[in-house]
Every structure is written in structure tokens, then in C-alpha cells.
């Protein structure tokens, strides 16, 4: 069982990463990553909603028939997003002012749909929750990576305004990498999103390919 969870975690974070492997949820991944902080905000909001809705889908999995599962999944996802949106607006208003823009976008994230269909609708609530959470965290990691590359090249900063999202204690991670006004504007505009995402997908595939090549060699070494 522990092994299962390990696979779930590894799949979510790397092997089956939502953005870089499954290429899902690319719209928010590219639209929202003008800075690493934005990517982090969007990613965390998505992780919370996907984890909670995966858990719900799993709880209702024996009630939902095959024929109506898609509308019910969308309903669950949309309801969760709306509840989070309203609750944050009312009770976490400062955070809402930063993330508010992103939250409605989570409804159209195919990542949640894919996890409902492939995992949550066939698993008990706890694994479904863990799967949703780590898929979401993998998504967060991807968004932070895309956002960081675009932000450093585009505006010369890293994690600018992170203290608005995470609290004043995180002022220290707001870095200026390049001098002001030297950024390549294109990286913050949509073309930069496509370029960065593409190059990061290539990078991940190269790392995976290298790991795959190293593995048989190691095994042979172990035998010798």
C-alpha cells in the first residue's frame, strides 16, 4: 500500500506530470505564468480544488453511472470552484485579491477531468485525494518552473510580489536577477509562454531519456 502511494506521488510530481507529460491544463499554465509568483498562486489554488474534487468524485463513485459521469464530474468541479471562490472572497480577502483572478479558470482545467476519469472514479477517497493533491502539486511545480524562466528573462526578477501571496515573511525570496529594464518583453507575452513550455518539455524528455539509458547500465554494473 505504501508502495502504491509512492507511485501516486511520483506519477503526479514527475513521471505523469500534468503539464510536461500529459500536456493537460496548458491554457492556465501558459496564460498565468507571467511570473513565478503567479504560477505558484495558480498552481496551489488548482491543487486544492483538484484534491478536494477528486475526493468527492471518489466518494460518489458508486452512485454515478457511466452514462452521466461527465456532466456530474463537471458539476462537482464547478461547484467546488464556486465554493472556494465565494469562501475566499469572504474570509481570505487579501489572498483572494491575488488569486481571485485564477480561481474561476480552474473549472476549465482538463487535469481535474483526466484525474476523475482515470483515477478518482475507480479508487477509494484517500488514494483519490492523494492523487489529486500530488497531480496538483506537480502542476504547481510546472507552473513555477515556466513562470520562473519567463520572469527572469522577461523582467529580470524572480518571485516578485511573493510577499503579497505568501505573507510578509517571504519578502526575502523576492529577487532581482538582472538589472531593471533589461528584460526581454517577449518572454512575458504569450509567445514566451509557448517557447518556455516547449523548451521545458524538451528538457524533461531529455532528463527522462538519460535516466532510461543509465538504468540498464547500472543494472549491468550491479550484476558484475
Amino acid at each position: 500500500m505504501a508502495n502504491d502511494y509512492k507511485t501516486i506521488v511520483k506519477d503526479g510530481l514527475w513521471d505523469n506530470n500534468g503539464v510536461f507529460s500529459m500536456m493537460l491544463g496548458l491554457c492556465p499554465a501558459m496564460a498565468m505564468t507571467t511570473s513565478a509568483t503567479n504560477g505558484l498562486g495558480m498552481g496551489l489554488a488548482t491543487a486544492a480544488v483538484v484534491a478536494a474534487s477528486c475526493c468527492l468524485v471518489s466518494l460518489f463513485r458508486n452512485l454515478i453511472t457511466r452514462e452521466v459521469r461527465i456532466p456530474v464530474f463537471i458539476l462537482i468541479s464547478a461547484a467546488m470552484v464556486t465554493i472556494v471562490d465565494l469562501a475566499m472572497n469572504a474570509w481570505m480577502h487579501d489572498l483572494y485579491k491575488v488569486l481571485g483572478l485564477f480561481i474561476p479558470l480552474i473549472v476549465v482545467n482538463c487535469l481535474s477531468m483526466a484525474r476523475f476519469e482515470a483515477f478518482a472514479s475507480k479508487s477509494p477517497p484517500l488514494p483519490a485525494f492523494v492523487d489529486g493533491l500530488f497531480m496538483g502539486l506537480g502542476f504547481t511545480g510546472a507552473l513555477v518552473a515556466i513562470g520562473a524562466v519567463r520572469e527572469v528573462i522577461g523582467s529580470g526578477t524572480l518571485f516578485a510580489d511573493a510577499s503579497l501571496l505568501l505573507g510578509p515573511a517571504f519578502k526575502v525570496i523576492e529577487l532581482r536577477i538582472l538589472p531593471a529594464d533589461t528584460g526581454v518583453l517577449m518572454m512575458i507575452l504569450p509567445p514566451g509562454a509557448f517557447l518556455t513550455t516547449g523548451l521545458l518539455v524538451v528538457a524533461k524528455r531529455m532528463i527522462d531519456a538519460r535516466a532510461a539509458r543509465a538504468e540498464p547500465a547500472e543494472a549491468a554494473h550491479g550484476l558484475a
Partner: protein
Amino acid sequence: MLVRAWAAMHGFGVQRNKRWHGTCEASGKQIIRPIMNLPHTLSAEFVATKPPPPRTLMHGVILGSFCLGFGLVLAITDRLTLADIAARALEDRQNSLSQVIPAGIHDNNPVTDTLLMTDARDKEITVYRARKAGRVTGVAYEIYGTGYAGEIKLMLGIAADGKLLGVRVLAHKETPGLGDKIEEKKGDWILRFTGLSFTDPPPERWKVKRDGGQFDQFAGATITPRGVLGAIRGGLEFFAANKAKLTEGS
């Protein structure tokens, strides 16, 4: 084989939704198998049975119940958060107003001292009034300009004598790094209007330099400052045209 024979006898397949329906001859148990698995999982002891009719009504009931249930949950959430959200919206408005109405010139709460007017284009404008000892000392209202990427929403504060108390951007979709220098936190461009009025400079000079006005555009962006200036000019015109009503009781 029995399955096939049954299908042939009845003139149609026993599958529905890519599943074969059958009964185990020995135990009488219902058997449903994905069509792909048929040759392996169905042996002679399985007798094909007629598939059950499609359960359209049941699907409808399931979907309907989920809609009803989540609808209820959403209604409850809405009820619970309604008052708090309204309070937060009021605070937000108070914050944006406090940027264009200095605390020193009023002793009332401008957020609640409002006046509904219509501008030259029949658009409704909510005017917030600042009063000191009952006399109107200034007003603030939202103005809108057309930027490079859509509408720019600003808040304009103006003293009873027609001098600008301040202009702040509330929302915009301008290009980051170029057009967003109109935000107060990204540059001091927006601060230059404080103290000016509709006659200082004269109306025809309320433009960017490229259009023959007296205000700098910024590097790489002309359309954004042009939109902001157009909005401010419109706001000043609105004040000039409605001065009597706006400053009633000053």
C-alpha cells in the same frame, strides 16, 4: 457459442454499450462482460439473456439529484458568504477612494455618501462625496479609458474647486512591463495629475505630447497614456458640466 446462437435467433446482438449480457446456467447469476473479453470469459455454461432496457430515467434522476444537491450546497454557501463579501467590497471601495480623497478634507464616509448621476453618454456614474462639517469638499468617481488591451478603469478624485486630488488605476489589462507603468506601484507617472484642473492646462493640452498635448507618453507605449488622458479629460468635462450638482452644499 450459445451467446452467438441467441443473438442469431433474435436477430440482433446481445451487446449494449459494448457489453455482453448473459446468465450463468448453473448458478443463475447475471453476467456482463466487456465485448473484447467475450471469447475468453464466456463459455458454454453462459446463456445469453436479453440486455436490460436502457435506464434513461435512472440516469436523469442521478444527474438531477446531483444538480439539486450541489445547487443546495451552493445556495447555502452563497447565503453564508453574502454579508462578508459585501463588507469586503465596501472596504475595497473605501481603500480605492482613500487614495484619491485625502483624509484631511473630510469627516464623513464618502463610500456611503453617494449620488447617482448619468454622464454625457448616458452611462450611470456613482459619485462619492467627501464632506467636512456637512459641506462638500470634494468628489470622486470612476472613469474609464480605452487602452491597448481593453478598458482601463480609474478612480478620479477632484476637489470642490475643480483641482484634481488624484487619479489611480483600479484595473487594466495593459502589457506588463510597458503599459502597466500607469499603476502607482510601477511608476510615478499617474501622480503628475494631482493639483491640475480642467483649465490648467487648458482642455486642448490634456493629451499626450504626440497628440499635441503636454503629457509625456512613456517609452514603447503611447496608446495606454492616451487612454488614461482621455479618461481624465472626460472626467474633468463631467465635473465641469455638472459642477453645480456635484458640489451642491459646499
